């Protein structure tokens, strides 16, 4: 069976994402990349933690952060993680249509998260004059949270491209690893967010 042959329920492997060498390589390569990203975000977190109290007399974390908006953002991203799990579940059941629908829902939730975050940054800039250049705390906050937001944006682009490109192809051993890896990425983004809302926002409000 070659990689691009159309699959049926019967000849379809349990783990389609790892059924080819290319798939196995992508799977492992991506987990390794996530290991590196862990260290990358840790460096950003470490920098933030070292600088979070250096607000140069300007706005502090207690002034800025509010629970409701952070809570909604968290709910959006956490739910989108679940919807992407649903999508992969349908992929494994060879239900392509349903997989596509759940990925679209994931994208919508993710876009909602991003829109909220843009609103939030805009709010800080206009209400508190809290910018990237205001202080070390400002630079560290926008860099850490901004890098995460950038990763969300990349993830959305990734899903959208995959869905459009593979829209009419059906599931195959060629695109199964691609969907799987994109989904892993999306979960990782949620993992990073758990630490952001805990360390940046919640800890920032406690003081």
């Amino acid at each position, binding site marked *: 069976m070659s990689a691009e042959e159309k699959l049926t329920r019967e000849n379809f492997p349990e783990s389609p994402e790892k059924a080819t060498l290319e798939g196995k*390589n992508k799977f492992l*390569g991506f987990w390794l990349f996530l290991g*590196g990203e862990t260290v990358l975000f840790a460096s950003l977190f470490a920098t933030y933690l070292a600088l979070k109290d250096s607000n140069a007399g300007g706005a502090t974390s207690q002034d800025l952060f509010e629970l409701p908006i952070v809570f909604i953002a968290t709910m959006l991203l956490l739910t989108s993680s679940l919807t992407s799990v649903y999508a992969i579940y349908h992929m494994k059941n060879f239900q392509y249509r349903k997989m596509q629908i759940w990925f679209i829902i994931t994208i919508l939730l993710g876009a909602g998260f991003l829109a909220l975050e843009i609103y939030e940054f805009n709010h800080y800039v206009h209400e508190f004059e809290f910018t990237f250049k205001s202080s070390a705390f400002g630079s560290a906050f926008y860099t850490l949270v901004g890098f995460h937001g950038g990763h969300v944006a990349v993830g959305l682009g990734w899903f959208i491209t995959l869905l459009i490109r593979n829209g009419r192809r059906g599931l195959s051993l060629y695109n199964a690893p691609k969907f799987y890896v994109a989904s892993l990425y999306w979960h990782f983004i949620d993992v990073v967010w758990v630490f952001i809302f805990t360390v940046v926002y919640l800890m920032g409000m406690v003081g």
Partner: protein
Amino acid sequence: MSTLANTKPKSVLWDYLTTVDHKKIAILYLVAGGFFFIVGGIEAMLIRIQLAVPENTFVGADTYNELMTMHGTTMIFLAAMPLIFALMNAVVPLQIGARDVAFPFLNALGFWLFLMGGIFLNLGWFLGGAPDAGWTSYASLSLYSPGHGIDFYTLGLQISGAGTLIGGINFLVTIINMRAPGMTYMRMPLFTWTVFVASALILFAFPPLTVGIFLMIFDRLFGANFFDPTLGGNTIIWEHLFWIFGHPEVYILILPAFGVFSEVFATFSRKRLFGYTSMVFAIVLIGFLGFMVWVHHMFTTGLGPIANAIFAVATMAIAVPTGIKIFNWLLTMWGGSISFTTPMLYAVSFIPSFVLGGVTGIMLAAAPADYQYHDTYFVVAHFHYVIVGGVVLGLLAGVTYWWPKMFGKMLDEKLGKITFWLFLIGFHLTFFIQHFVGLMGMPRRVWTFLDGQGWNTANLISSIGAVFMAVAVLVLVINIIKTSMSKQQADGDAWGDGRTLEWAIPSPPPEYNFKQTPLVRGLDPLWIEKMEGRKEIVPAEPVGDIHMPNGSILPLLMSLGLFIAAIGFLYRNDYAWGDPIGAGGLFITFASMFLRSWIDDHGYHIHKEELIDEEEKEVK
């Protein structure tokens, strides 16, 4: 099912610009790395000319700072790393019985990113000033460096660094997933083991550098406040991020060199490597401990006695696995039938040279003593002993050893030995005396020194040694040219005593490396077959169609896009076109990435019939 049969003949230039073949990428890395090695060497010569006599005015202070910065940056990032990647690419897939690396496209991308980054870094020489704050570019100094020198450093290294990270992941997946049947982890050749651990170090060490460089870019070009205390920044953050990268980096450099020596010692003693298991254990331990010691570069910054004590002890601990390796190499030679070929000469001279560097490292590890050594020539002597005596000797040995495998011709032994002796003498002349002039108080990174301090003779000797090394490299270049013009054809088992899989296939190998994936029956698989009277490895599969990847111009385009973006962002505060060009460059990169994702490219097949035909022709 093939979509694009690879029958169109390509020009050599286009072939190399679009290749995804690890063997050609190895040659690209070798040429580029070799070129930058010469650039770094010229920078070194200019430094040594300036320091040959006291109060010299050969170059001014500013130029000296640029030379000193670029010498270090070029040698580590643009010469040593790429040359190591050249050997990794040329050898590892062959040693594990694979037909290419896991991600051939990304392999090419890694190379072009390195090259674009390296060129960008050196643009400063022509565009107003090279970086001048040392290869470590500490924030307190580099934030205030006038002109754009430091920006060439940050943006150039960021691009190159991305290439290295991609390469690291590639080799990890290749080694984990693509070993030939029968090759368990404990049957891998030692060079592959060292590449494996070094690649893991790359994966974890480069992200902190990436973050540090981003923060520096943000501070200098975008008005951020990470390192500037005025608005709350903290300069030591740079030091930590840099050295959390920087210390594992030197282990990334030395481990593959250790791997080369393990291969060379075993091959030219005609004896298997002594203590394979402990060698593997030592490599892994060195890799692990390499992440625990970075603060030893910061002993004098005022972090306190507890921090200093912890890191001093951790640093000294690395001597233990390193010592295990030294003894194992010596014991490999003991009782062997030794053949002093050029690679073996490098290996034998590496032992005392590297040990010298290692023991001065232990001296430096004692934090209180380091307060005396820090920022003197004692440190310069130490790291040149380990880098030149370790990494460079390893690269020279590896390049000489695997040259016939890569190019199908043996380098001239006589000229090789001349290069070896000139280089060795020059190296010791230059750096041995620097231990003493450092202990006598000469600081490092000074553009000149006053007469009458007792340092004159030492500096002169040091500079004379540099001439020896320069001549040695010249002889090497002559050797390479002479060899390329010769008509010899090396055997598959070029040195005659090959023990590992790469020597079981022709020199240079065919496009697909192995017609049939080999079956590995133990450590030193080729040696096992030889001892049983066979000339070839037992195959693990019948002859069949071989699937090959297509080349692509996209890696070059992606890298070019980032290069253009870097130019734009460098000038964003000086010209209105800065940001638009930056965005334009990024667009080229993202568009290329999009094209790569959108356009299906399933490669092509070499058919079974062609392979069998080839075999029949050879037999006739």
